[in-house]
């Protein structure tokens, strides 16, 4: 019997191959996109789930306040916060400081091999327990109690030692004033991809306070309440009430203010599982995800799969007239309703199985593209994931049954006498539902399309904006590991001797680098004036060539010059910094004294605001401090472009002056553009989703068109006999669908307006919402609508009316 069902099902599917093809493609696309999105959503929600007791681990962060309102949320706090909190609040069982070293990277040396280490942190011993890192090699007892200990990951060990058992090896951090030696005491597994805090190497926190060279480099000291430069994690005791802890933390902050440890600031707790999706603070260790986007994606995935099934139902039942005769004859011949239903169900399940197979192929083809698009790790396990297969199986079986049941019941319930007499016609039941679903699908499509247009426009706007700084035609060379300062003038002179090189400048950071590369200090004020509010000021160290090289405009005062020395304590500030001090006239700012870091500094010049960061961020209040040492970056600007010849030239000079040091560089323009990565990804995801959404919505419309046209075949025949032209019929049929789509427009436009306004709030510099951003997508949708119903309507409109009026 089953064999018979299968045979008939396959024959039917082959006979209506066009419809079968549309059905399979529609379902397969829905399956594939939903499968991928669900995997992505699962991954985004899985952050920190590899850590035991992750619900007891809390990150402490710092809010900067003006009165009661929060001006800045910083993810880093003062290093003594942890020990003090543990001593004063009984719910805190353990703490670890996590101090980022050498942002963005630190020179390291193993034997003669030199390299730059990224993601290096100084941590306390409890770090390993709190984040569940077990040592593959090394002794966990007394781990990180002493200075100059290091733990590296398996990958780091393999990369630099070609083996993993490297306990006892020594890694050197060279420096012009002296080296720091680390002895490897442990090797641990790599950080999982779903943690916000990934590392290549860890060093013992006592190094920060005990190693003299380390002290010199980072200025860390016991009880340092000057710089909030450390991440801080605490573990609460088992069964601790989080709300109660929050209250304790509030009281703790008040005590810190009373004790004059902090001013206008508050320590805020944050569960680590919430960091990836919900935290949007400054100085995050890596760019976080966004809960809203993840939820939105999930909702879209759900809609896409529902749409795909609904389309299938629509298309199948629209065939009812064609299959009515088959049903009628079978019933007359003695087939029961149940047998007919099984027949239709088998067809539905066969289609769903085929769609599942096609979906697998689509996933396979789109996988790598999807991974890079969504930002998932390249080694993300997809096909090895049980949930992936379970979901696919659920789609096939549940989808097959659910989407097969309705057509099965509708088609099998036709009355044979009515069908065979020819007086059979569709009922109006469910028309509203079908229309409703199409309205819904198009509303989603229009929302996505308008968003895509807006996102695109905003990105173009940000890229095209005058940033007040020229990041093109320059490469940035990272400081060598040895004697950089000593030979720097030689390096610079050698480079400048070359006609292709226009300028060379030194700085601590360059525009476009993460905000973490800047130093921040809140307590900077005009000498003699006690500030009534605190802001983070951003400090960077530059030489006299930095401002002219970057084309930053001097407003008043003068740039640093030959006579400038560090000891003169002169600074150049920007307009935004003046605004924070309520100075409106930049002329008046010159020679004013400001106080920070326990000293007085003179304002030597004021520069026009420039976008140190992408226009997404507000302008930073910048303070430029003079420094003439090559401790981090050298920017080389060329007369022409950054050609490979020019690059080779710089590399050769570098190797001559700093033999044995690793030559590491980046293009300033490219580095700057990396900031648009999140928006670019957002745009790409939207574009893909929009494309699929359009495809599925058009299939839905095709389904509705087939259904309603099959219902109106007789009417159209009559109209044509009476005198309607093909154009009359086309207009008649299209207006109906266009009306349906216009309802979608009415629903979606206000909603999109709201969504976009909300999204644009993320940007300090943003586009105005022009009318065409809405009109163009709507027109595009209308064109697509006409196109997708076109074939069917034209077919019907030009058909010979006598065929539809035959009653015999």
């Amino acid at each position, binding site marked *: 019997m089953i064999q018979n069902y299968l045979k008939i099902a396959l024959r039917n599917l082959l006979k209506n191959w066009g419809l079968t093809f549309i059905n399979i493609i529609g379902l397969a696309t829905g399956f594939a996109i939903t499968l991928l999105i669900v995997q992505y959503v699962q991954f985004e929600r899985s952050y920190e789930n590899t850590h035991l007791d992750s619900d007891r681990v809390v990150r402490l962060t710092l809010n900067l306040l003006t009165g009661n309102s929060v001006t800045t949320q910083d993810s880093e706090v003062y290093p003594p916060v942890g020990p003090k909190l543990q001593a004063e609040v009984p719910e805190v069982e353990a703490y670890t400081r996590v101090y980022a070293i050498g942002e963005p990277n630190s020179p390291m040396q193993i034997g003669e091999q030199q390299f730059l280490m990224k993601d290096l942190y100084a941590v306390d011993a409890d770090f390993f327990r709190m984040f569940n890192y077990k040592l593959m090699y090394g002794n966990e007892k007394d781990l990180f109690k002493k200075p100059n200990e290091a733990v590296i990951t398996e990958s780091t060990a393999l990369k630099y030692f070609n083996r993993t058992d490297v306990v006892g090896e020594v890694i050197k951090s060279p420096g012009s004033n002296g080296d720091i030696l680390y002895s490897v005491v442990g090797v641990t597994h790599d950080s999982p991809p779903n943690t916000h805090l990934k590392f290549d190497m860890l060093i013992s926190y006592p190094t920060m306070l005990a190693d003299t060279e380390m002290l010199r480099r980072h200025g860390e000291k016991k009880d340092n309440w000057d710089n909030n430069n450390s991440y801080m994690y605490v573990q609460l005791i088992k069964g601790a009430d989080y709300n109660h802890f929050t209250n304790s933390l509030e009281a703790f902050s008040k005590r810190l203010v009373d004790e004059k440890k902090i001013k206008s600031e508050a320590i805020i707790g944050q569960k680590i599982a919430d960091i990836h999706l919900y935290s949007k603070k400054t100085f995050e260790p890596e760019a976080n995800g966004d809960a809203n986007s993840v939820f939105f994606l999930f909702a879209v995935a759900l809609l896409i799969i529902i749409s795909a099934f609904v389309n299938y139902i629509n298309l199948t039942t629209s065939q009812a007239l064609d299959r009515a005769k088959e049903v009628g004859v079978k019933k007359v011949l003695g087939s029961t309703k149940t047998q007919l239903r099984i027949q239709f169900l088998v067809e539905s399940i066969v289609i769903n199985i085929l769609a599942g197979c096609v979906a697998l192929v689509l996933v396979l083809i789109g996988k790598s593209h999807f991974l890079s698009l969504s930002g998932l790790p390249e080694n993300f396990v997809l096909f090895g994931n049980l949930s992936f297969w379970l979901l696919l199986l659920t789609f096939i079986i549940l989808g097959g049954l659910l989407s097969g049941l309705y057509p099965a019941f509708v088609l099998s319930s036709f009355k044979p006498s009515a069908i065979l007499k020819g007086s059979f016609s569709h009922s109006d039941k469910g028309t509203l539902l079908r229309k409703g679903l199409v309205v819904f699908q198009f509303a989603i499509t229009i929302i996505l399309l308008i968003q895509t247009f807006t996102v695109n426009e905003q990105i173009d706007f940000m890229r095209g904006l005058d940033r007040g700084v020229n990041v093109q035609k320059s490469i940035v060379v990272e400081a060598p590991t040895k004697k950089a300062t000593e030979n720097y003038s030689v390096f610079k002179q050698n480079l400048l001797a070359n006609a292709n090189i226009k300028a060379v400048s030194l700085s601590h950071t360059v525009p476009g680098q993460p905000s973490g590369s800047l130093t921040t200090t809140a307590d900077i004020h005009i000498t003699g004036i006690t500030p009534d509010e605190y802001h983070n000021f951003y400090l960077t160290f530059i030489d006299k060539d930095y401002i002219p090289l970057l084309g930053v405009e001097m407003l008043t005062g003068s740039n640093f010059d030959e006579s400038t020395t560090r000891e003169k304590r002169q600074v150049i500030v920007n307009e935004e910094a003046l605004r924070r001090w309520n100075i409106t006239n930049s002329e008046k700012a010159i020679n004013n004294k400001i106080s920070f870091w326990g000293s007085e500094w003179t304002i030597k010049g004021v520069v026009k605001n420039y976008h140190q960061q992408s226009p997404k961020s507000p302008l930073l209040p910048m303070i430029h401090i003079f420094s003439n040492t090559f401790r981090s970056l050298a920017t080389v600007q060329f007369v022409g472009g950054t050609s490979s010849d020019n690059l080779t030239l710089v590399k050769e000079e570098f190797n001559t002056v700093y033999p044995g040091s690793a030559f590491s560089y980046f293009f300033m323009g490219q580095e700057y553009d990396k900031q648009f990565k999140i928006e670019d990804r957002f745009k790409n995801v939207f574009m893909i989703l929009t494309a699929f959404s359009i495809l599925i919505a058009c299939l839905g419309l095709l389904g509705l068109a087939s259904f309603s046209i099959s219902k109106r075949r*007789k*009417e159209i*025949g*009559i*109209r*044509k*006999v*009476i*005198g*309607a*032209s*093909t154009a*009359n019929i086309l207009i008649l049929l299209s207006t109906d669908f266009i009306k349906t789509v216009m309802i979608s427009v009415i629903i979606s436009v206000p909603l999109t307006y709201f969504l976009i306004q909300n999204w644009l709030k993320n940007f300090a510099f943003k586009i105005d919402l022009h009318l065409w951003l809405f009109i163009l997508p709507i027109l595009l949708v209308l064109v697509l609508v006409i196109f997708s119903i076109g074939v069917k309507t034209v077919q019907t409109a*030009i058909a*010979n*009316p*006598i065929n539809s*009026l035959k*009653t015999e």
Partner: protein
Amino acid sequence: MIKIKDLEKYYKTEELQTIALNKLSFEVKQGEFIAVMGPSGCGKSTLLNILGMLDDSDGGSFIFNGEEVINYNERKRANIRKHNIGFVFQSFNLIDQLTVFENVELPLIYTGVKKAERKKKVHEVLEKMQIMHRRKHFPQQLSGGQQQRVAVARAVVNDPKLILADEPTGNLDSSNGNEVMELLTELNNQGATIIMVTHSEHDAKYSHRIIRMLDGQKVTENSLI
């Protein structure tokens, strides 16, 4: 008014060709009332479809009002049709979603008659068919006889020169059937040419001339007047 000569029509499937009309020739004069009779499959409906310019022929000549229309394209044929020909079907073929008034109004819309003029004409024809009181009803709310009267009203609202009727009483009981035949006779008396396909000898008696067909050919032709 109509002159057909050697009219041919084939229906082809993959394997065989069926001849629906086999070199059929006859003439219809203005103001005539013709009944076409014959067994099922003899080509009556095919003939009516070609005369109504709903279908192509495969050979022969078809002169309508002095014009050779055999090679006219779809658009030209549709244009002649909507100005000159009215149809009455066995199964009425009213549009269920439209009211009686709207159904009758439709041909006037397609010939571009102005709204006020349309209203006047529809009212006139509905009065004439004695169905005015039902003008706001939908077809399902009417009896078979009433539905056919609406269909006839729709067929004549444009004052067509030719009315083609395909078994107009086929779905009606005898009293309603007679009523419809009376109506057609009256229209004929007012000048309309009528060609009617029928199985009913009783209905055929209303006509002036009966053309009997078999296998796509004219067998006999007898005048009743």
